[in-house]
């Protein structure tokens, strides 16, 4: 080992500190500012994606799959009527939205199902059969 490798490098400790802080912060749930927010989980067989879409008519949401990419598109209308005399506060995001999510494998597009309940859209995506890992039997000669 060269001598220079052994010198104390303050960056190493700083980077470690940053890593530790990130780990600590990740243990809390921090909602993000995007619309719509998504939670997703995938294993080797299927994926489940939950999307928060309060105030969006389920019939107007477009869910599409291309290869390994899921896309959710729609439009959230403003609830404030044009005839409103005065608007005090408008915090709820409005307008068209689109979000895509890349999955770890290609999706069996015909078998994707989507349900909507109380403003939460749940999309179930099975993995395409042909992309699943296949065990190969080893035979003795």
């Amino acid at each position, binding site marked *: 080992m060269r001598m220079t490798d052994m010198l104390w490098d303050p960056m190493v400790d700083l980077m470690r500190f940053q890593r530790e802080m990130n780990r600590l912060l990740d243990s809390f*749930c921090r*909602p*993000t500012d*995007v619309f719509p*927010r*998504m*939670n*997703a*989980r*995938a294993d080797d067989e299927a994926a*489940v994606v*939950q999307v*928060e*879409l*309060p*105030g*969006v*008519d*389920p019939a107007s949401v477009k869910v599409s799959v291309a290869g390994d990419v899921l896309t959710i598109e729609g439009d959230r209308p*403003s*609830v*404030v*009527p044009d*005839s*409103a*005399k*005065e*608007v*005090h*506060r*408008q*915090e*709820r*995001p409005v307008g068209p939205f689109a979000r895509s*999510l890349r999955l770890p494998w290609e999706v069996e597009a015909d078998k994707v199902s989507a349900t*909507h309940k*109380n*403003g*939460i859209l*749940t999309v179930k995506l099975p993995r395409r059969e042909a992309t699943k890992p296949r065990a190969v039997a080893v035979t003795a000669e």
Partner: protein
Amino acid sequence: MSETRAVSVTSAEPRAVDAIRERPVVAPAADIYETEEALVVVADLPGLDQSAVTVELDNDVLRIRGTVPASQPELESPDLQEFCARDFERTFAISVPVDRDHVRAQMKNGVLTVTLPFAPEVRPKPIKVEAE
């Protein structure tokens, strides 16, 4: 109209049974507007149905509370997590007189709409001009 954010869920009286689950409490995003007849408060409460939401008008304070039901399906250890199960609470100070007996609250697609009709005395009233 002024507005306050609730930061605590502790109630004034001790409760016989307390919630076991610990979860964050957040103030829901809200729109507030006035029509000719009413003050309307709209709040996003995704994942909740009407049975999970309470709305009360205590003097001039409108309080909205939403509790995520235990039966709410949650993704366990998600790979991507942008939201979490949380309870909602927010209070608003209502500074105009409202018709307290006709306040309506409605839940649809995870959105709460509270309509507070103005009290008759604050509604614009046409006054007939008479000739002398």
